[in-house]
């Protein structure tokens, strides 16, 4: 175990898997220079053909990952969520649909690393959090780690998985530090939520960078005598429904915190699921705390209003107790 950052944990996972399996390679824009902090050192260690700087042609290289995977390699794509729009067709028509459409003839072991930048005054064009859209499309596994250890363990699992995985990296977490195992086979399975903090009054399900905020809210609420159970789903497809339902069975109250826009968010899905499958345990309306249904404005004066924070989570928890 060593204490490292979230970014370095991702870097370790990529390096370890590239050492372990020669079929793993990585592509992206200016990644050899380590532009987004995570891919540093790869070009020094691995052959040039395994660390590829691409032209700004996302459709071509995100789709090329499909072709390379279809014939046996294991590509990793490195990009930001906001640049997936231009490659959306390759994500949907090829990556998501190919295995099914061709009757299971082909495996597509691809990891699409999708950084999410928001909350850093980078305005609407660079602040996308599109995980709910991809959840609506069958055929994609969707991961969103919250801690350095999970980042490493889930990324290694993703690289070894035989299906396309979209690996959302919340940039607000990149500098977070934590204990990370050094075991080469440290893998975290998909579909297993992590109860970050046990509690009895209200369940808070929080995604990615929302988790530290939810934990901070829980501390604050504890001071007010409210016991919050904080659940980190870790993967959205598959979703550990049981862990959420079990928690709600105990608390009877649910708040879901999602950095996506509220309408048709992952929070909406979790709320809908619980309102169906956990209905009889609910003792209060389900609260969603998500980004407002508006684009991310640039101005520091406005942007902070748009995404969830501790106060909004606390208020939502209290609403469930009214």
């Amino acid at each position, binding site marked *: 175990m060593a204490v490292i950052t979230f970014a370095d944990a991702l870097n370790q996972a990529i390096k370890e898997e590239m050492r372990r399996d020669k079929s793993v390679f990585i592509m992206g824009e200016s990644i050899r220079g380590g532009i987004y902090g995570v891919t540093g050192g790869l070009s020094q260690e691995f052959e040039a053909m395994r660390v590829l700087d691409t032209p700004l042609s996302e459709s071509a290289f995100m789709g090329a990952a499909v072709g390379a995977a279809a014939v046996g390699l294991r590509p990793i794509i490195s990009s930001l969520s906001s640049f997936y729009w231009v490659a959306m067709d390759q994500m949907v028509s090829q990556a998501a649909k190919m295995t099914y459409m*061709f009757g299971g003839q*082909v495996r597509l072991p691809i990891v699409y690393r999708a950084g999410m930048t928001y909350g850093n005054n980078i305005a609407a064009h660079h602040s996308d959090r599109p995980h709910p859209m991809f959840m609506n499309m069958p055929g994609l596994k969707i991961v969103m780690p919250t801690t350095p250890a999970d980042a490493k363990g889930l990324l290694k699992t993703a690289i070894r998985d035989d299906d396309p995985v979209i690996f959302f990296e919340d940039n607000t977490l990149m500098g977070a530090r934590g204990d990370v195992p050094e075991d080469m086979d440290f893998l975290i399975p998909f579909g297993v939520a992590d109860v970050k903090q046990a509690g009895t009054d209200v369940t808070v399900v929080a995604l990615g960078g929302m988790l530290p905020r939810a934990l901070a809210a829980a501390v604050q609420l504890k001071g007010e005598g409210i016991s919050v159970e904080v659940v980190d789903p870790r993967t959205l497809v598959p979703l550990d429904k049981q862990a959420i339902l079990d928690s709600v069975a105990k608390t009877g109250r649910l708040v879901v915190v999602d950095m996506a826009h509220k309408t048709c968010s992952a929070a909406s899905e979790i709320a809908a699921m619980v309102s169906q499958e956990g209905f009889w345990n609910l003792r209060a309306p389900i609260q969603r705390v998500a980004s407002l249904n508006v684009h991310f404005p640039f101005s520091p004066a406005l942007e902070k209003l748009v995404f969830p924070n501790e106060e909004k989570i606390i208020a939502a928890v209290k609403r469930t107790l009214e």
Partner: protein
Amino acid sequence: MIEDKELMVEMLRRMLCIRYFDEQAVELVQRGELVGAVHAYIGEEAVAVGACLALRDNDYMTGNHRSHGHPIAKGGDVRRAMAELLGKSTGYCKGKGGSMHLADFSIGILGESGILASALPVAVGAALATKIRGEKRVVAAFFGDGASNEGTCHETMNLAAIWKLPVIFVCENNQYAVTTRFTEVVATPNICDRAAAYNIPGVLVDGQDVVAMYEAVSEAVERARLGLGPSLIEGRTYRYQDHSEGLRRIVRDPYRAEEEIAYWRTRDPILLQRNRLMEMKMASEAEIALMEAAERARIAEALQFARQSPYPAPEEVFDDLFSNPIPIDRS
């Protein structure tokens, strides 16, 4: 001109196989036995056959919605193809793909894509993999004149060019995208002129002449295997049928003249190769008649196989969504 008689005859055989397959498919649509969309390749057979015969068995190929010609040309199994068209579990894709989505990964057929130009990145990715692995395989990527205007064409041709990937971009210019003539939507006289933008060879070929297609693609394949990068081959060709079967009911506008169709029928690729084989004394009329009968029988047998095959069972509906299945909400 090719000396290899066996090859020359095989060209005709594969074209006949595609022709009869598609005639059968059209008939099945008319009879209502085949549901969904069918885009017949009739008239264009020389493009796929000439190109695919220039490939080795372990080379790769991707295609599009006009999807029966490419896999048959590449050596696919007409029984499994026909079963797929009928949505049967013995089909190539267990009935999940249908007419527009044939694929046979075991022989390098990486699939036909219904979204236009969308398979080009897949082709480039397969080529990248061969390069990373140091193999000598090449990839043929078929796409239409209409699809050539998609942005993905630009990205993939440039990517293949800068990385010197072994891709043969085969543009099947049948001169129309549904009702839109290519001269109205392509700014250069020929689509292959665009090769200049990628510093790669661009070759205009008579797409009705299977030998010309074979020769042009062979040259491109040789370049590709030598590590010299991709080529763009434009096969100028023609489709006799509607864009898709049944479309004439909807599109009232006669976008092309009957005389034009009649002219192109005089340049039928099968007719041309048939005559050539006889002229070159590579096959007699009787031998060709035998071959025609054999191919017709092959299609008839494939249809019988397809008809007798079972439909997929309802419980298969979630199968193959993932290679490593996960628990998902199945309700």
